[in-house]
């Protein structure tokens, strides 16, 4: 009581000063501040409501605005500048080896089931790998295979063709061309039986030679 009386002896600070105070408090406060709270914080005799009106006006059209949040006040970024508060970073990563191989098998053998992919790769295909390729929209679901369990098949998409600059999946270089380009070794692994495609012809030639030897 005694303190209050003492304080009231002093003049309240000028309104401009009160506006500064409201500005500082609204800026620094971790939560929106009510008028009552402002008045309690400011020196005796201050009128936070009046200072707020001035401050609000001052920030009209500025990069930040004084806004009412419930029954409290806060400083907020002007709505039209929200885009500045976002930062988009584009990161380019190389596709993992597992993903590339899976993608390649889908491209060369489509429509292909997961079991078939695993058989060709010789390792199991993780869900994440397939999901990633689906998400990239490089592969999509094809028809279900009419075999027991009716497994889903995968095929490549138009996006895939666009990305790799192919007219159709048939434009993919065949094994013969891969071999000619030095991408494939001469001898196919013994585990691989007779697959379809022009790739087999080279193998056949070797076999023919061998038969000749035998003869």
């Amino acid at each position, binding site marked *: 009581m005694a303190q209050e009386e003492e304080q009231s002896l002093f003049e309240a600070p000028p309104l401009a000063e009160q506006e500064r105070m409201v500005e*500082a408090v609204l*800026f*620094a*406060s*971790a*939560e929106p501040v009510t008028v009552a709270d402002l008045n309690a914080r400011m020196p005796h005799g201050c009128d936070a409501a009046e200072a707020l009106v001035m401050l609000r006006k001052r920030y009209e059209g500025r990069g930040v605005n004084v806004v009412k949040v419930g029954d409290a006040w*806060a*400083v*907020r*970024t002007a709505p039209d500048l929200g885009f500045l*508060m*976002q*930062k*988009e*970073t*584009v*990161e*380019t*990563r*190389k*596709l993992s*080896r597992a*993903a*590339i*191989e899976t*993608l*390649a*098998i889908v*491209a*060369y053998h489509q429509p292909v089931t997961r079991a078939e992919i695993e058989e*060709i*790769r*010789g390792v199991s295909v993780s869900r994440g790998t397939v999901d*990633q390729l689906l998400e*990239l929209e490089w592969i999509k679901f094809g028809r279900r295979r009419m075999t027991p369990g009716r497994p889903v098949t995968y095929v490549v998409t138009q996006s895939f063709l666009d*990305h*790799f*600059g*192919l007219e159709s999946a048939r434009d*993919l*270089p065949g*094994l013969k061309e*891969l071999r000619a*380009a*030095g*991408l*494939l*070794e*001469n001898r*196919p*692994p013994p*585990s*691989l039986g007779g697959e379809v495609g022009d*790739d087999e012809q080279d193998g056949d030639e070797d076999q023919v*030679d061998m038969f*000749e*030897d035998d003869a």
Partner: protein
Amino acid sequence: MAENNDMFEALDVADRLAAEALIVDVDGFEGPLDLLLTLSRTQKVDLRKISVLHLAEQYLAFVERAKALRLELAADYLVMAAWLAFLKSRLLLPPDPADEGPSGEELAAHLAFQLERLQAMRDAAAKLMARDQLGRDFFARGIPEDVTRVRRVTYTATLLDLMQGYARTRTKDEFRPFVMDRDSVYTMEEALVRMRGLIGFAGDWTGLSSYLPEGWESEPKKRRSATAATFAASLELAKRGAIEIRQGEIFAPIQIRRKSE
């Protein structure tokens, strides 16, 4: 000793009390330099005009009294005491021209510099801490609207990656850069070496095919390569004048023989 007594008498009561407090509160000092700086305040002069000799005496008296009170003094206090005793003797005795090393005055000047520098840093620290500080006197935004980082990851792969990937799965092998598969290749160099050894025995016309190395005659790939290499080698030997070559007609067997001298 008499000097020390004079010194203590010269101090007023408050200073004497302070001096005694020093002794009891030896742990309160951050080492000998800190103690020296505190002692130097009793001189009440600019640190640049301080009497280092006087200071050394004060310090030595302090150590003496601490010993008398059986206070445990840390080693570095005693090291400083020994050094100051040495300094004191240098300052008091006339300089010995034969003596190497810095003079007493230089040592004293450096000590004074150290004290002044330490005091300066303490004053600076005090000024720094007296500044308005963030979170105490001035404040940052209470509700920062942090930048949301939208990270977009794009994946890339080239057609080559794709083909290499497929090649890998089809060979169950690490992709390797193209190298000529040399298994079924017979080089001209090999053929030359072989023919040089054999040519000495070729007095008569013999078919080139009989010069093919063992194991290279039947398999078509090998035979092709060996035949070409042997033919090239025979041309080379003919050029050097080692052999003669003949062919009866088109597609007839090629024959060679050693060139008679």
